[in-house]
């Protein structure tokens, strides 16, 4: 999209650029302006505006949809940092509405109830950038081929359990490491195995890295969880239920911000992990039956 004075908006470079700006930061789920202020005060680099955190979506059941525009606008007005919001997988009209509201990033998210069980949104058609979840490299590359400008692990949102996010990050970065060692003939096979576009697989082999930033989401509840995600290769973290479902959100939020920046410094991690009160209780994976596993949504 080019304007008359020669400047362009909504280019891949501009959209991926905002993802670059969020690296090393913490994006926090907030459900109202008051929580958004707490998040910004604690040093969040962005907030995700939604009506219910994933733990409550899980508890309540039913259909989870895009949030009320009034609530999103209230959060936009409360903070100076970027505001993200979620749409259902495949629900491009919810995305059109969020773009019209001027949100800074859209999360096409498995945490909400999918609107389309075959197609994801054509994200090239939007000026606003999109982030999508992935459990493995093939899924991540398919989302990039649809125009996603940031990938996050799906993890298992609303559980306070990091095990699934670790699995997803290891899947993604493990396969990236293997592809950088593959020869040309093997790259064709990688594309087939991953069900991903050959050109993107070749790009990874050439550059040695994924085409867009990869962040961690789904199950982060402690500063140590955030640092684990960063040491495994995550370039920033999303924290959903982990902050506002804990006993004392503000100090925990600040501690997770410090841990994400100083993720390799065990002395800092030890200091910021002290005296935070109880984290969210959390759920073990074998306590969740198949239909309640958010990570299995998306294709």
């Amino acid at each position, binding site marked *: 999209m080019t*304007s008359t*004075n*020669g*400047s*362009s*908006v*909504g*280019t891949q*470079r*501009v*959209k991926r*650029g*905002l993802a*670059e*700006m*969020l*690296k*090393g*930061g913490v994006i926090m789920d907030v459900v109202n302006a008051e929580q958004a202020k707490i998040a*910004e005060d604690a*040093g*969040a*680099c*962005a907030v995700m505006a939604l009506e219910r955190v994933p733990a409550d979506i899980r508890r309540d059941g039913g259909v989870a949809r895009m949030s009320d525009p009034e609530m999103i606008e209230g959060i936009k007005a409360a903070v*100076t*940092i*970027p505001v993200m919001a979620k749409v259902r997988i495949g629900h491009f009209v919810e995305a059109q509405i969020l*773009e019209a509201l*001027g949100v*800074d*990033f859209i999360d096409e998210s498995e945490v909400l109830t999918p609107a389309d069980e075959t197609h994801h949104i054509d994200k090239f058609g939007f*000026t*606003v*950038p999109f982030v999508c979840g992935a459990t493995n490299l093939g899924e991540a590359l398919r989302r990039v081929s649809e125009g996603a400008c940031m990938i996050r692990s799906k993890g298992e949102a609303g559980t306070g359990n990091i095990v699934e996010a670790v699995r997803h990050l290891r899947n993604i970065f493990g396969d990236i490491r293997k592809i950088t060692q593959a020869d040309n003939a093997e790259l064709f096979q990688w594309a087939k195995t991953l069900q991903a576009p050959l050109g993107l697989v070749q790009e990874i082999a050439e550059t040695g890295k994924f085409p867009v930033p990869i962040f961690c989401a789904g199950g982060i509840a402690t500063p140590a969880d955030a640092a684990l995600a960063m040491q495994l290769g995550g*370039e920033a973290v999303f924290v959903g239920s982990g902050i506002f479902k804990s006993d004392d959100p503000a100090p925990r939020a600040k501690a997770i*911000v*410090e841990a994400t*920046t*100083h993720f390799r*410094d065990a002395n800092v991690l030890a200091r910021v992990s002290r005296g935070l009160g109880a984290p969210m209780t959390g759920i073990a994976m074998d306590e969740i039956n198949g239909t309640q596993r958010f990570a299995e949504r998306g294709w």
Partner: protein
Amino acid sequence: MNLVVGVLALQGAFAAHAECVASLGVSVLEVRTPEQLEDVDALVMPGGESSTMSQLLLSSGLFDAIAQRIAKGMPTFGTCAGMILLASEVLDGRPDQRSFGAIDISVRRNAFGRQIDSFETAIDTPFGEFHGVFIRAPRIERTGSAVEVIGRLGDEPVLVRQGNVLAASFHPELAGDARLHEYFVTTMTTARKV
């Protein structure tokens, strides 16, 4: 001579800056602590969220350490949020937001709008046309008499210098063009080392 350029790595686009500096064959060090700052000859402050970085600068003890180094003449290059951190006056920031006051400019945070208004365009500079990527970019609303305007977008300043401090409201690290980093390293940093 073994020049080391630091990139402030508390939050933001530090990885892209480090790549740009490394592409010039110069040693790069990510800086998150005052100890790491002691090992660098110059510092790049990336884009990101200036409010987040301001807090992390204070909690890490880097704020005072960097202020002292800048006062002693350390060459410093700030882009976008990094420019906000270097400015003498920040408009539309958070009330508790700190800046170094290292360059006499007034900048307004996110003055070019939200992400849907972010854009890329050509900028006039002494090195020729430069591709500018502006992301939720700040605006330079005033420049002091000691400030040299190096690059403009239309009539307004977007690249400015005062002594050893260089500041841009756009993102040269995202444009795949290291000429501005080269200017910073060769003209501003090397000259000082000799």
